[in-house]
């Protein structure tokens, strides 16, 4: 079966770049900054596949390029080079050769993103329901009654009290804001979801409840997910397969259980042992 997402040699260099950027950075050089030109190699030559219905973890310490990777796939940022194809209903979309309108269309209707910082994923000046409405409107749902009903149902599903539907999310707790973001990301029934550090900074009990919710939603809908985190607990809780990144490179990948029990790379061993 074709993977839903096939990423090949994806690279993102911040700065003017030079022909030695890739050979002078990475784990063996202990840096992601090119000593010759000063450019930051955020992601280098990343290749992986996400299978249909799979939850894939992207793990690594801060600055290793995890967010950069998903930002490109969600069209928040453009790669320096590389390719990614998204297989949607049997049709393959070459993500970075689409024009801007096609990219926006795909993102609005067939992708969802939950950011660590809710202010990136939500408009704090409109109500929680309005945030969901916006996403539905972007995918051409113009019936007020339907929008209202869907927003109500989605918020109920993500355990946001219906009474708070018409309030501004800026007044919500961090956990509640993440629930609204999740509801928004789910609203168009997209088969592909990106979650970037969605529980980072929340109370432990709140974290656990949100992870359970994500798990339940995934099992209900079979949505494919890329879950970015530096938290081993999240990886263990949600994912079946995991990629480990360091200085922009994928240094290890495999079944999450195996990686956690028997990490191969020294770096992964460090990550795992420091979390114990």
């Amino acid at each position: 079966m074709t993977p839903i997402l096939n990423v090949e040699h994806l690279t993102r260099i911040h700065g003017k770049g030079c022909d030695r950027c890739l050979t002078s950075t990475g784990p063996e050089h202990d840096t992601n900054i090119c000593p010759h030109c000063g450019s930051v190699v955020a992601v280098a030559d990343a290749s992986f596949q996400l299978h249909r219905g799979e939850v894939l973890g992207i793990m690594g310490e801060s600055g290793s390029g995890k967010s950069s990777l998903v930002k490109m796939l969600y069209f928040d940022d453009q790669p320096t080079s590389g390719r990614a194809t998204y297989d949607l209903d049997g049709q393959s979309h070459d993500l970075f050769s689409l024009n801007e309108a096609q990219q926006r269309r795909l993102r609005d209707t067939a992708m969802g993103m939950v950011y660590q910082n809710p202010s990136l994923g939500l408009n704090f000046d409109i109500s929680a329901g309005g945030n969901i409405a916006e996403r539905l409107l972007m995918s051409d749902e113009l019936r007020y009654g339907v929008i209202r009903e869907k927003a109500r149902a989605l918020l109920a599903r993500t355990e946001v009290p219906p009474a708070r539907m018409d309030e501004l999310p800026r007044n919500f707790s961090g956990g509640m804001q993440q629930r609204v973001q999740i509801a928004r990301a789910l609203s168009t029934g997209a088969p592909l979801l990106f979650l970037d550090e969605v529980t980072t900074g929340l109370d432990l009990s709140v974290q656990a409840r949100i992870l359970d919710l994500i798990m339940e939603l995934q099992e209900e809908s079979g949505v494919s997910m890329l879950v970015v985190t530096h938290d081993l607990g999240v990886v263990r809780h949600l994912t079946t397969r995991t990629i480990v990144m360091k200085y922009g490179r994928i240094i290890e990948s495999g079944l999450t259980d195996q990686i956690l029990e028997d990490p191969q790379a020294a770096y992964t061993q460090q990550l795992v042992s420091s979390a114990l």
Partner: protein
Amino acid sequence: MFPTDTMAQGHEGAEYGFAFLDEDAKRELRRSIFKAVCIPGHQVPYASREMPIARGFGTGGMQVTLALLGPRDCVKVIDQGADDSVNAANIRAFFSLTCPGVSGTTLTEAASVIQTRHRIPELPLRNDQILVFQVPYPDPLVLVEPNAATRRRMHGRADYARLWVKLYEDMVAFDEITISHRYPTRINGHYIIDPSPIPRYDVPKLHQADCLYLFGAGREKRIYAVPPHTDAIPITFADVPFTVEEFIDRKTGKRHCCRRCGATDSFLDEFPDEDGNRVFQCSDAAYCDSRLMQQEAAE
């Protein structure tokens, strides 16, 4: 219409070309007007000239009108439907002074160019007439997006979901869409315009009209157009119909009528009379007057 340069003498011997603006300025305006007509609803930038009145008093509309007028034109100027307000009268006088040959009129049917603030005349306009709006705020997206470059991109790709979110929030709060003026209207299936502060009542007149509508915003330096026979659809939800002011008297359930001419088919201004009673009167003074004249003639 477009005149060639005939020099006129102004006050105290100051010289200026026909229609006050120099020929370069008029050429630039006409280029922008043509472009606006070719891309219905698109806000076309132009170099706004200094006018002898302050920006915000209709300089955008005036420049468009001046670029259109030729010596055989007949111009009407209305402010909230009235020809005799100080503002309208001053602008009309300015046109007469700077455009030799151009006549002024208050009759809608006699005008070839009508400049307006806040209303569209009641009498349907013909294909040989142009209505020029004075526009204070040309961009409907300012309400949802502060950055001008982002707004331009949003217009380009018809990214208007956030305008609908405004309507959603309105429905949630009030159970109806409460926008009374400047109702966002989609032109030819793509661009959404701010039709200037006309009431909702006037919005349907933009749709598939015989005349040309031009919009001039002096402060923001933008011109846009709704050409004849073009779709102009006020935005709403599929299940929430767009409605216009109905002027229904809650006591009788019937429509209020104009206290002067008795019209029940016009946009009405409401104000207290000498005794403090609420009374209603046609906002379009020319329409009201012509009805009165007809009634007198019939008697």
